[in-house]
């Protein structure tokens, strides 16, 4: 296994370890923040990081040795590692104190930390495109050419869509559009509002282009019109993401429960 994939697998492992920490934490926690037990947010981020880093690690593991040993990719792993630990530790430490992390600009310290979380998140998102680009260009990668195309396009698309949906989120004072009444319905586990607009579903869908498009590519790889399917799928996926973002901005929930 190349060094880049190895460190990315480790980050996957530590994300899983943070999920385990969340589960044992759940056994003792009673405090609520915005109607949710405080351990749930770090747990959801840890779960999301497991999927994110496992996908990146899998792709990086398919790179040819020459590409994987490039200095740029090695530095990228340093940046991703720093961003991961910063986000995970800050979100967890805040939750353990019963405090919010995102949108918490209550004082100078929390305002600066929220800003730094933005820097970390953008680094993680841009890193996805860098690895996608490396896969796309690496003719020696251990991937079917159509799948390689799908991974490259999916990763880069995920970066683009996530930057748009995350910019929407950060331009607003909260992930809600409208005020959900206390105890209003939410979508199970995901916690998205089922009563007012919520910008998180579009962000979720955007981020998971990095799995959805490669999966589509895997299904159609080797068929005559594989690339057309991948490009068409990417266009449709982008339209869906934008529609969900627009729906939330209009104050409409994903589903009304």
């Amino acid at each position, binding site marked *: 296994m190349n060094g880049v994939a190895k460190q990315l697998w*480790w980050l*996957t492992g530590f994300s899983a*370890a943070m999920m385990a920490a969340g589960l044992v934490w759940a056994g003792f926690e009673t405090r609520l923040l915005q109607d949710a037990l405080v351990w749930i947010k770090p747990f959801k981020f840890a779960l999301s990081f497991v999927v994110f880093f496992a996908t990146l690690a899998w792709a990086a593991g398919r790179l040819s040795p020459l590409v994987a040993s490039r200095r740029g990719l090695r530095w990228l792993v340093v940046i991703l590692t720093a961003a991961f630990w910063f986000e995970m530790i800050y979100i967890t430490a805040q939750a353990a104190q019963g405090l919010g992390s995102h949108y918490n600009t209550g004082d100078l310290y929390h305002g600066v930390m929220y800003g730094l979380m933005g820097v970390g998140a953008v680094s993680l998102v841009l890193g996805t495109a860098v690895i996608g680009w490396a896969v796309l260009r690496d003719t020696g990668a251990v991937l079917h050419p159509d799948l390689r195309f799908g991974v490259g396009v999916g990763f880069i698309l995920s970066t683009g869509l996530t930057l748009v949906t995350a910019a929407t989120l950060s331009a607003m004072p909260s992930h809600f559009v409208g005020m959900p009444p206390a105890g209003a319905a939410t979508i199970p586990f995901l916690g998205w509002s089922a009563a007012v607009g919520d910008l998180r579903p579009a962000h979720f869908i955007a981020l998971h282009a990095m799995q959805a498009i490669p999966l589509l590519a895997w299904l159609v790889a080797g068929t005559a019109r594989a690339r057309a399917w991948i490009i068409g799928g990417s266009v449709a996926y982008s339209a869906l993401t934008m529609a969900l973002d627009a729906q939330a901005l209009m104050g409409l929930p994903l589903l009304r429960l």
Partner: protein
Amino acid sequence: MSADDLFGLASAAVLPGWLILILAPRGRWVWLDRIPALILPFSLSALYTGLILAHFSAAEGGGFGSIAQVRALFASDYGLLAGWVHYLAFDLLIGAMMAGQMDKMGLSRLSQAPLLGLIFLFGPLGLFLIWAAQGSLRAFGKGGAA
């Protein structure tokens, strides 16, 4: 020396050990590796031995059988100091051992830094994360990413 003086001394003594573990090169100078792995834990263990032998029996109603008994052990400043030195010594030793293991597992020093910081502050929490990560990678079939 008063209990307060010894507390300050012991707490200050572990800091260079943690700085070495987190920041210094490893495996280059044996004497440097031994400061957190041997010299400081040994010195703190010596301090603990003296404190516990001199003060253990003084705790009225002290013992290991209930929260009330353990609280009684820590009721005096010297009892509390001994408990604190126990933490300092063992956390540093565990930190040094885990640093060596994380090197063997090929984990980058950048990822090691927050984990060692967590062992410094919350001992078992850091240990839990390292072992849980190792276990989950085995479960993914990535065998400790070796």
